[in-house]
């Protein structure tokens, strides 16, 4: 593990921890954006370019903004007075630690995972694109169709519903 990898890993974990523990929800959302960027940096260091870029493009560029907007539109800006932790936080930590131990034990002892680490596959953006265009072309086309339908639907929702009413509103503006 290179020092850069360790540093980005620590930054990612710190961002995630702050996203859980800060009082102000907007701060939490921004900390989560830091965690997302850290994950993207980790992907890039592991030579997974496509996933790394998609992580930034989708999570930092779109989802973080979406979350922040949702917070702004639904709540007032004041931070809550009471503590972030609920009363039963000790029990929560105990339960989650137990769950983590059990899952970790199960994964490490599973027969489905090969014991030897296989050689790293070469996954350039070109390979990902080739796979999407040949082997996975049908799922890709369906996703594309669904997303285009969603986009057209958004445009239709944004259209004015009552043209009669809008005409009378627009009349004086020009």
């Amino acid at each position, binding site marked *: 593990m290179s020092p850069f990898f360790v540093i980005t890993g620590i930054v990612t974990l710190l961002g995630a921890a702050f996203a859980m523990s800060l009082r102000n929800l*907007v701060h939490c959302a921004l900390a989560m954006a830091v965690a997302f960027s850290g994950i993207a940096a980790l992907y890039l260091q592991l030579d997974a*370019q496509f996933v790394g*870029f998609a992580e930034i493009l989708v999570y*930092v*560029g779109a989802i973080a903004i979406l979350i922040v907007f949702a917070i702004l539109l639904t709540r007032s800006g004041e931070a809550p007075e009471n503590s972030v932790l609920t009363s039963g936080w000790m029990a929560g930590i105990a339960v989650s630690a137990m769950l983590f131990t059990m899952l970790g034990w199960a994964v490490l002892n599973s027969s489905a995972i090969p014991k030897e680490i296989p050689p790293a596959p070469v996954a350039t*953006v070109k390979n990902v694109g080739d796979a999407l265009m040949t082997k996975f072309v049908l799922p890709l086309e369906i996703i594309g169709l669904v997303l285009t339908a969603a986009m057209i639907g958004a445009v239709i929702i944004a259209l004015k519903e009552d043209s009669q009413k*809008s005409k009378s509103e627009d009349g004086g503006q020009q």
Partner: protein
Amino acid sequence: MFDKLDQIFVTALHWLVSYVPEMLRPVVSAMICIAFVMSVFPGVFALTTVLERKILGRIQNRYGPNRVGIPFTKIRLCGFGQFIPDGIKSLTKEDIVPRAADKVVHFLAPVVMLIPVLLAYAVLPFGKNMTITDYDAGLLFFFAVGGAVEVSVFMAGWSSRNKYSLLGAMRAIAQMVSYEIPLILSAVTVVMVVGSLNLSEIVKHQNNYTFGIAHWHVFTPWGLVGFVLFFIASLAESNRTPFDLPEAESEIIAGYFTEYSGFKFALFFLGEYLGMFAIIGLGITLFLGGWTSPVSFLTWIPSYVWFLSKLMAIVFVFIWIRGTLPRLRMDQLMNFAWKFMLPLALINIFVAGIWHYMAADWQRWLVCSAIIFGAYAILGRGLMQNQNFGKRIYRYAE
């Protein structure tokens, strides 16, 4: 001779790096490239601020800055020394932070703005063999880091605790999200035809000549439409007039950086202009042939000269538009993006597909141009509906 001049920076880099021990070479080479970007493009920014004020002055029938030249001499340089006192002024001004502001986020916002903008320069080919990191997916990288700018705009607007700042940030994010879609969709056509996301590869594809004229993508029907869409969307992405609603002085003071002063304001200013140069650079790379020359008998001019002159030419058009067009209304802005640019960009992708698969003769020119012209006419008519463009009616206060 001309080849050597063309490659002078590449040779200089190799020469400098050869003096460093083997182990440190990647780091030193990266540092030199960063120093290059950090010195050249802020320099272009400094010149552009003066140029912008002078051109706007000419458009508005006044002189613009024409006094400051070299200090302690009588040389005036037509006022092109103006950026030095401007820089000193912004460095020495008091940094005011509002009492109610969220101090940490307020401090971080200009920094977060500048980092992705500077990262975007990593993949742009400034000249022949002059790409800093030649990523396979350079175009994807550019758009990915561009998406992170929105976070900084939100941070600035929200942390200032000022209604104008928040309004400006909301407007800016709505605008950036809306215009990012036509921006990316218009770039997709180039990727389809070239078959690569690598920006150097895209430039190489345009570096051929027929009858002495270059194969720039802008000289094809889909490329022309793509370039115009890209140009308009990049105007909106860099918050320039007529899309400057996020920082409309007469409505919301300065938008999301209302509460910034001194050097933080200068950082925002710098970030905005560097973002503009980066996106223009991408537009040049995608549609205007990058560092290639438009005609074959001018190929001896160094590639970086071509890149920078194309950049400055488009910057001039940006300034010209700023001096000419009024600001759009919010509904006009959104209507234009979603009802005109988005459908046209989708049809343009379709046209690029037809162009790719039809035989290379006059028929594909006819078919592609006809589809684009029809789509343009129908969409334009759709956009004009319910907008009575009659005689202007003035209403006065009683």
